[in-house]
């Protein structure tokens, strides 16, 4: 035979595998994967590292917020800024009990991220405390119940407050 049987069988197998993979990719639901959001804190140049370590009371620091959406749909997000210490940090289930000092909002499409330069004021801590934590908590808006939900994601940065 002009066309070798074994070569033809291999070629047919390749076409079948390619066809199956192609169908799987076409019908795959992009919303079926893992859904998550992410938050990051960057320095004033929007890069990792070289964060401020010291601040005076009521000094304003420039930082950069990073938020990423992988929820499979557009997300209305909010980051709340709080000032606390190692006893008032958030957990994956609970937010920090400290009051909100500032908030930033945005809307992100699936698979996109947002970096935003922010200015935060380091309020004067209690008299016996010098080390404070700048806490940033990420919330997303539940559009069915019309309320903000804590995502369980947060970042914090320890700062020594000079007096």
């Amino acid at each position: 035979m002009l066309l070798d049987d074994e070569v033809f069988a291999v070629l047919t197998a390749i076409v079948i595998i390619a066809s199956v993979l192609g169908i799987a990719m076409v019908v795959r639901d992009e919303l079926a994967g893992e859904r998550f959001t992410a938050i990051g804190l960057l320095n004033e140049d929007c890069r990792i590292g070289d964060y401020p370590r010291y601040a005076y009371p009521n000094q304003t620091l420039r930082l950069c917020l990073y938020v990423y959406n992988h929820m499979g749909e557009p997300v209305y997000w909010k980051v709340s800024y709080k000032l606390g210490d190692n006893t008032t940090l958030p957990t994956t289930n609970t937010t920090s009990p400290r009051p909100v000092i500032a908030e930033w909002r945005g809307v992100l499409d699936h698979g996109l991220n947002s970096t935003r330069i922010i200015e935060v004021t380091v309020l004067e801590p209690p008299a016996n405390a010098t080390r404070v934590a700048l806490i940033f908590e990420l919330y997303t808006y539940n559009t069915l119940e019309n309320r903000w939900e804590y995502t369980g994601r947060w970042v914090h940065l320890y700062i020594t407050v000079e007096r």
Partner: protein
Amino acid sequence: MLLTLLTLLLALAALQGSLVAAESIDDVVGPLVRDLEELRRSRVDVSGLVASLDEATRLWESGDVEGALVVLNATKAEVEALKAEAPRVYVLYIARVALTVLILLLAPPAFYTLFPRLYLRLWLSYRRGWVVVKGASRR
């Protein structure tokens, strides 16, 4: 009496205006984001509208509430227009997926059937000028 009624009406109008102004951005953006979620499920491209909403939230936070409302109103109008288009877009999307799957399903049998014939045709056309001589040397 008439003056009192007029004053009362003006006061009511002012109160209503202050309520509108005091409306939270969440009350405006939240429903629009819900609409965008539904549009995206219908496979409508909403990336531009999401960017507009993001811009509106930034304007609002920077204190430019009027600018934010202009963007929000434009976005809302576009969302309403797209809502009417969404069913058609979804049907087209399903048709495109079904057609692609059908083509991919037909590819293996088509290859199995047609490839040997195509190969034979190419093989023969490549050797079109050859002459078959019985008993000739292989050189």
